[in-house]
């Protein structure tokens, strides 16, 4: 998929990823160097794929088979019972209702957080790129450097603030926190994208009498679909994978999937059901993995956002 936000101009918004390899000319098809090259790449690929394979195999085995002690062996007898249990009846601390509760909590947290954070950050990015005012760059710089501050530093005051607002330990609370901490990277993303669009377009819209919101909604947003896709991918994976904010701000009832997964696996009582654990792990990883495999280059652009400014 190509990510060309504005096909008319010659300027490409944001130096995205060159598609062509730039390295040395390819050597002949089969020579020792080439074989070495592919061997190294394949060994690395095995290292990266191994955990996924092990998870899959373990989750399809029965416990007795697991105790035989070969994590690489494919299941002799395939069973989906661990999956069913992980989803429906596994115990997460006090309750034994499985991961489905966490799944729906994560959905309830992720969707509003993504919408809120992207809405606010896109408007911020637009204001910063096209309507600079005195001090706007200063705020932006602090915002970006603020994103490097460890969350731990700001946690306690935020607990107090959300408690005062009456949203501590609720869905609103965790959504509020995600919106705040999504702001730096998303604002940077949108600001860079909008700043790379031809400035004349913005000027033309002003001459045409469109105001602040008119230009944003009627001119910029319709031509910025790619960057919104990138932002959605970035936020969906980021918020779905969050643990810290979920465990602190959402409240026991609303624990997201990651927190519940950790509770299932790391509870000390009872027999360890490794197959159920692995099924639960796969279930938790399924959403971001699906997003990753289906979005391809958009994800790459998202993770590299801001890091590669040229």
């Amino acid at each position, binding site marked *: 998929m190509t990510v060309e936000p504005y*096909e*008319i101009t010659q300027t490409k918004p944001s130096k995205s990823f060159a598609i062509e390899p730039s390295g040395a000319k390819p050597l002949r098809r089969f020579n020792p160097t080439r074989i070495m090259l592919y061997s190294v790449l394949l060994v690395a690929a095995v290292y990266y794929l191994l955990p996924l394979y092990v998870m899959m195999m373990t989750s399809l085995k029965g416990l007795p088979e697991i105790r035989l002690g070969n994590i690489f062996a494919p299941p002799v007898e395939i069973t989906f019972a661990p999956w069913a249990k992980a989803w429906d009846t596994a115990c997460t601390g006090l309750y034994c209702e499985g991961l489905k509760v966490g799944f729906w909590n994560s959905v309830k947290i992720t969707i509003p957080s993504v919408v809120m954070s992207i809405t606010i950050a896109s408007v911020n990015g637009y204001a910063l790129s096209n309507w600079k005012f005195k001090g706007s760059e200063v705020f932006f710089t602090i915002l970006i450097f603020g994103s490097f501050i460890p969350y731990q530093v700001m946690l306690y005051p935020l607990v107090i603030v959300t408690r005062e607002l009456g949203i501590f330990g609720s869905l609103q609370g965790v959504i509020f926190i995600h919106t705040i901490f999504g702001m730096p990277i998303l604002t940077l993303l949108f600001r860079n994208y909008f700043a790379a669009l031809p400035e*004349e377009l913005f*000027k*033309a819209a*002003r*001459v*045409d*009498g469109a105001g602040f919101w008119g230009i944003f909604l009627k*001119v910029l947003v319709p031509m910025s679909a790619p960057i919104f896709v990138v932002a959605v991918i970035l936020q969906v994976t980021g918020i779905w994978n969050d643990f810290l904010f979920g465990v602190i701000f959402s409240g026991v009832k609303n624990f997201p999937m990651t927190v519940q997964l950790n509770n299932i696996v790391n509870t000390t009582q009872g027999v360890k059901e490794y197959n159920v654990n692995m099924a639960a792990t796969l279930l938790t990883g399924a959403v971001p993995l699906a997003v990753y495999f289906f979005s391809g280059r958009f994800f790459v652009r998202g993770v590299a956002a801001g890091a590669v400014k040229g």
Partner: protein
Amino acid sequence: MNSISIRDLSLNFGEATVLDQLNLDVAEGEFLVLLGASGCGKSTLLNCIAGLLDLSEGQIIINGKNVTWAEPKDRGIGMVFQSYALYPQMTVRGNLTFGLKNAKVPRDDIEHRVNRAAQMLQIEPLLNRKPGQLSGGQRQRVAIGRALVRDVDVFLFDEPLSNLDAKLRAELRVELKRLHQKLRNTMIYVTHDQVEAMTLADRIAIMRDGVIQQLADPFTIYNQPVNKYVASFIGSPAMNFLDGAYGVDGQPSFTSDTLDIALGRYTFKTRAEDNRPIYLGIRPEHVWVGDAAQEQPFRSDISVEVVEPMGSDTLVWTSLGNQPFHFRMDGQATVNVGDRLPIGFDPVQASLFDKTSEIRL
């Protein structure tokens, strides 16, 4: 009445002064070209007039209304940009009507204006296409149409032809001229291309470092540049500048180690003192060769160093009085390196500049 008046306009970005105490009056229906090298402030000035940049000092009056702090849409201007700046997600019709819809123009009126503009620019068949499906020339027509439908008295052009190839540029240039003759709107046109400036302008303002160097009709600019910068900026190939001193030995003359050129009927703007270092500028096309040279007040023999045939004419590089010198010959003439040729020119067609101030004498 003046269509546009600019009073003491200054613009600073931090400590950098981009425009400095600039004054400019544009008459109604005039085609004014702002010409200069990149970074001279010409586009900045245009953006100030359009209201796209806030000025630091000064006033801007358009059609008798002080619009210094008015929004771009309220200034009665239409603008055409270098990159066309068409909204990519809208059709051509959408692009033309966007401003009118924002201004809440009645629908019948919109329809009428769009049709009229489309007809005038011959873009009727394109109305339902998206900008991405158009060629560069078509896009620029649409962009002009977008200014046209606004029914305004003042058009601002920001290097509108720079993104087009040479052939299209020549075509659209003529079309713009026709459009101006038909509409008689005030037009301010920014370019770095001297051909566009010379061919289109009623008056040209040559800018440098945020200051207007000379504001005059193309003929005056070409023949009587006010300073050495203007003289070297206009004309291609560029004017020759001979380095020497002014002398009044019986009659005014230009002298260097090896040259002595009687200035004859040259019309001085200011008197220069004796022995003052000056430049003598003469355009390559004002130098005569061969028999024609015999009738010129100043004559000399040169030897040809480099020949550049261009087809319509031929450029010859040589030296005159040990200083580099070039001139233009008929394209059909055959010249070879090493040939000795008689040349001559009339100092009336020359320009003299003070060497330190570079101002015309």
